[in-house]
């Protein structure tokens, strides 16, 4: 209850225009490029399918908050957390998403800055780590 209240207060403070649901925020902030089904455009826009796998490697949790589309969006930290949680559940894989705690507004506040300078390199590093298999999370 306290957390819910905090989220509401955070949303009000941030003054985001406020749509009631994460799927609508996904439509307005992400879908234009990542498409309704999350598959993106090969070579131009990364696919979101299976994005929850990033949660299983060190640095992956921060990466998802720090990609340009996330940290630059006009969403408040609370709303960004809600959209990310919706996306993880929606684009899966479910087993990776279920094992990790959901993002909170406080966590997003911490992770959102500083922005990634070289997004593609960080993505490649994480994907390589995923290839090598599960690593202990810190």
């Amino acid at each position, binding site marked *: 209850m306290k957390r819910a209240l905090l989220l509401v207060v955070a*949303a009000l403070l941030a003054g985001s*225009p*406020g*749509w009631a*649901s994460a799927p609508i925020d996904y*439509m307005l902030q992400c879908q*234009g490029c990542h*498409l309704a089904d999350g598959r993106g455009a090969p070579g131009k*826009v990364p696919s979101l399918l299976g994005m929850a796998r990033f949660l299983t490697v060190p640095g992956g949790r921060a990466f998802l908050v720090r990609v340009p*589309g996330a940290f630059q969006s006009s969403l408040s930290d609370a709303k960004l957390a809600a959209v990310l949680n919706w996306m993880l559940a929606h684009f899966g894989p479910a087993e990776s998403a279920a094992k990790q705690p959901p993002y909170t507004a406080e966590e997003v506040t911490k992770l959102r800055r500083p922005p990634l300078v070289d997004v593609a390199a960080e993505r490649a590093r994480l994907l390589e780590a995923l290839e090598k298999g599960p690593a202990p999370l810190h």
Partner: protein
Amino acid sequence: MKSMDGWIGAIARAVARRTSRRGFLASVGALLVGGAAAPLLPVSRAAAERARAAGEPDPATPAGDPDACEYWRYCAIDGFLASCCGGSHTSCPPGTQMSPITWLGTCRNPQDGKEYVISYNDCCGKDVCGNCFCNRNEGDKPVYYTHKNNDIDWCMGTESVVYNSTVALVVGVATPSEHAGKK
């Protein structure tokens, strides 16, 4: 048997006296040509297309007319209306390809007062249409917010980056949160 023969012969002669082969051919010809031409006549098919779609405002008003810049779905558009360029408000003109990567915003439908999420898909691959320029820009952000700016060419993910025109697709209903109105 003989009487039946005579009877049929009499009918045949009576029919032959009343009709002519030329007249018959002329009427069959008229039927063929006329029948083929009927679909070409400018009957009110245009009006039939204008029949009010479910949930849409009256097509006789600008807010309900997809050919008018005032059409409700065009509240954030910046471009040439595909409906004026050989397509419709939901389909691209022939010879163009609809970009899957799009600019999205919300528009209020005056019919039910609800906000809908609208996807402005650019039609790409043919030279710029030039008809019915419409620039309403509600919610448009400066170009440094790239994903919320509609001045840039959204022909991405298509074979060609050449911009022709734009359609407006409804992709969702945006319900405002309880606090949205207080700001």
